[in-house]
């Protein structure tokens, strides 16, 4: 999954296909547990949705601008707008279902 910096982030979320952004950090242990799951979903939904991740330590402004206060958080964007967010570690089917709605 691609690590997004600010410009890549803005470019990706502006697209018509939904983009799922995983806000994470290296010391966040639940994020480490969740990452391979999100990675797996990204593989399965390849072509239907974009997936990327934002390291809140490196892109702190981005996290704050989008009101992310707790990680892991998945934010789903479509056409540059946030359409849904999932806070915390979630079951795989729940994430797939949430993203599917916007595909």
């Amino acid at each position, binding site marked *: 999954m691609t690590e997004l910096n600010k410009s890549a982030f803005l470019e990706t979320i502006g697209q018509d296909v939904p983009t799922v952004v995983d806000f994470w950090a290296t010391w966040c242990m639940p994020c480490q547990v969740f990452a391979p799951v999100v990675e797996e979903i990204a593989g399965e939904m390849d072509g239907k949705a974009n997936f990327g991740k934002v390291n809140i330590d490196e892109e702190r402004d981005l996290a704050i601008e989008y*009101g992310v*206060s707790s990680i892991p958080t998945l934010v789903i964007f479509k056409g540059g707008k946030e359409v849904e967010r999932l806070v915390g570690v979630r079951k795989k089917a729940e994430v797939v279902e949430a993203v599917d709605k916007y595909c």
Partner: protein
Amino acid sequence: MIIGSGPAGLEAALNLKIRQKDFLLFGAADLSNKITLAPRINNYLGLPGISGGDLAARFREHLEQMAIEIVPEQVTTVYPMGEYFSLATAHRTLEATTVILCPGVFNSKDLPGEAEFLGRGVGYCATCDAPLYRDRTVAIVGYTDESVEEANFVCDVAVKVYFVPGKAFTRPLDSRVEVVDDVPVEITGSGKVEQLILNNRTLAVDGVFLLRETIAPASLVPGLETENGFIKVDAAMQTNLPGCYAAGDCTGKPHQYMRAAGQGQTAALNAAAYIDIQKHTHAE
């Protein structure tokens, strides 16, 4: 992996040890306050009228004899990965073939505003989210032994940290942290957290961390089936997730020591059998 150090978790540990399985027992150093606080116990087989404190001492002695140690860390996430489980505490991640959940009963009610502001200022892992509070004000409501460390950690980053102790704390708290002995009532704000309202005082904050001893089973283990807040198990103490067992108060009523211990034993023996089958299939 055993989660919880009440009678259910301890009895599970004992049985896994006897079966010579490798395991870790996560819980509280003082076992469980549901043991230590009981004034007089009349229904524990063989130990009539024993006090909770004495029972806890006996439990501890037994653990020592069997060389079983408690890892004093709260497990925050158990994720079923199919063939194994991925676990997280505040400090590390681990993998396990089986998990036995013995966290006791989950009885903490949501604070008004908690669900509304989850991820918008409300969080459950201060160490995870600390960097997002650089130069901001944070309140930590601490019901766990580790809360003090989390408060100390956050005060290196935040401009101001309030600590609202949910229980007596013994570990050293950083002098920059302001202790507020009060009871949380509500979290308010517009769009994001702005205030933590206490009984006698209102704190203007950007974030509130609620560090509770027990985590709702369905949040602890995504995908775990529960019913009325209790974990659903079959007679083998197996949950809906293969390899994941549960025992004790978390599976339902009556809430009693012997039931918890008995279920812990059942869960451990079935988990041990599950491990053997897994090994066998992999060997083939």
